[in-house]
């Protein structure tokens, strides 16, 4: 019962914060990850959109700099999935969201949500195959959307549009990356 242990570990890690129903729901993870039939066109429900936004914000939260929601990452993710990804990835994404719905993600508190994502991250490592899993899509697109957005770039990096020179330099303590 490796899976069960993993879930327990997650629960321990979070100070036993997972509620019994959540644990049960997570115990059904395997079922939740089975392929679901989805329609030809990729579209998200309002609930799914909220889940995307909350997960994106957990990946890149608002701190003293803007968070994923502030810079429009949730809408960006949906646009990218529509425009640049084909049916298998779209389906994989919707399946992931469906399993999030099954664990009643939106009803969990922040710590519980983090626990679910940590588990998801570990589970994703076991997935092999050509189709990009949900967590991977979520994380890649959140990072891409955030760190290429205007506010994301300006607040995270030293943005230099025209460097004008190329030099080896020594790094300063706490130096941010250059972005170009």
């Amino acid at each position: 019962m490796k899976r069960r242990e993993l879930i327990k570990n997650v629960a321990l890690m979070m100070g036993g914060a997972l509620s019994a129903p959540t644990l049960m729901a997570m115990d059904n993870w395997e079922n939740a990850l089975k392929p679901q039939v989805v329609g030809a066109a990729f579209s998200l429900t309002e609930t799914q959109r909220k889940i995307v936004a909350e997960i994106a914000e957990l990946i890149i939260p608002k701190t003293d700099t803007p968070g994923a929601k502030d810079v429009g990452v949730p809408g960006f993710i949906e646009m990218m999935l529509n425009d640049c990804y084909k049916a298998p990835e779209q389906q994989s994404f919707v399946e992931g969201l469906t399993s999030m719905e099954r664990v009643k993600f939106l009803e969990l508190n922040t710590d519980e949500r983090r626990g679910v994502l940590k588990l998801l991250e570990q589970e994703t490592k076991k997935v092999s195959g050509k189709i990009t899993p949900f967590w991977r899509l979520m994380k890649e697109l959140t990072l891409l959307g955030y760190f290429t957005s205007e506010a994301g770039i300006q607040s995270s990096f030293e943005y230099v549009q025209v460097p004008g020179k190329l030099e080896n330099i020594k790094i300063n303590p706490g130096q941010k990356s250059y972005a170009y």
Partner: protein
Amino acid sequence: MNLNIKANKNNTFDAIVVGSGMSGGFAAKELTERGLKVLMIERGHEIKHIEGYDTAMKQPWEIEHRGKTTNISAEERWANSRFWGLGSEEVVNHLTNDKENPYIEKRPFDWIRAYHTGGKSMHWGRQSYRWGKHDFEANAKEGVGVDWPIRYEDLEPWYTHVEKFVGVSGQKEGLAVLPDGHFLPPMPMFAPESYFRKVMADRLNRPVTIGRIANLTQPQDIHTSLGRASCQYRNKCQRGCPYGGYYSSLSGSIPAAMRTNRLSILHDSIVAEVIYDEQKKRASGVRIINQNTMKTEEFFAKIIFLNAGSINTAALMLNSKSNRFQNGFGNDSDQVGRNLMDHQLGSGAMASIDGFEDDYVFGQRPNALYIPRFRNWGNDKQTSYLRGFGYQGGASREGWDRGANQDGFGEDFKNNMTKPGPWSIRIGGFGEILPNPNNRIYLDSEKKDKWGIPMIVTDAAFVENDWAMRKDIVASAVEMLETAGFKNVTPYDRPTHMGLGIHDMGTARMGRDPKTSVLNAFNQVHDCKNVFVTDGAAMASSSCVNPSITYMALTARAADFAVKAMKKKEL
């Protein structure tokens, strides 16, 4: 940029140049500078230098899909995006819509095209290496293909001529395998790269140098007089450079030709045929089809340079049939369209680098390291394959995108992604492909494109020599990165087709014997001396170095010969 063609009542010029890319641009420059009135014919639309680079100054967030290819673009640009991802909004308007310009793949071939002013010279990797003496001699020594009718010494002054005009930055190394050229100051190596260079020299006796690249590190008068400025280290060359920091026909040869007032450019005009005058036994001109209006028109000249790109040049010759040339223009040898070569790439190794945490870089280097060929060179003898390969690659600090491959999310993770990551290194091989008459393009006997021109069929693939070399490219890359003490050394070998190197060449080769080759030592068609082919089609072998400056050097040499011959009334 267009001059009024109607002003020339007879549609007659001293020279016609078919194509405006790397070699066509250079032909136009050399011929106009020697006093000829030249008509350059470009099949695609016009792009103006600077103002035509529509994405050049866009900020990252202004590129809607942030560099990814959309599904629509992937369908339209199926060859461009199949492996290269050349369908992104940064470049999509400058690479050819494959759906509108289809070709038939008997065997898969990634044919990357740029039908517009400047052609692929707007998009090239800018790596600029001279061939060595051995490259011109290998065919004869090994009994492969046909012997080159020229040697390094024939081309040497023309390499210098081209390098001065183009502006190539690089480090002199004094290596026979990679002859030095006329260089602008080299770009710097990064700290772990300098370490790598030292270890490779000490332990494996393999030189590592900074890439020799056609980006201006210190512009000279010859460059600034054309409005070109120093490289700004943005590394967004593929969008077109509004500073003229890198060389292209658009930033270099076409402006140079235009200032002579002897160049006319015709856009949107597909050359369908070379017109052969049976009485005079020479080519009299070309017939074009306007790609938008479908109108045909004929233009005439004393000499014609074919620089349409190796595949299109061969196709044009095959489609130009006359009583004299029933098998296609200049094709008595049946070699037109054959011996299609490229460079194989897509394999090598990568590794992570511990240390150098204090070292960082300001600016983006549009350049890489170069490791010259060391196989079948000197005392090295490989039993499983002929010729060799070079590596290109380099080290960099990882950016925010490393986050997708590592655990974590949330505040600390976010903060961490704003800092430079660890160094990593990657080197990938560029391998020589041998001429092989069975690797070829030909015209389909029935199917025609929307202009009524027979469709091109690609029929080429890697053979045993390539696969054996490929294995070694991977193994040697692993060996080198491990010898350097780098961590997590990981081989990679991405399956590719021919064509992906975007160095297609060889389809109308030079040679000594008209029975086995198409062109003579000055790139003249053996049996029709007033037609010159100086693009990649002319190549009798491929070396393993990037080919563009060799095409330009051959072009300049042929243009000089042509004008001298015309003055002596020999042409």
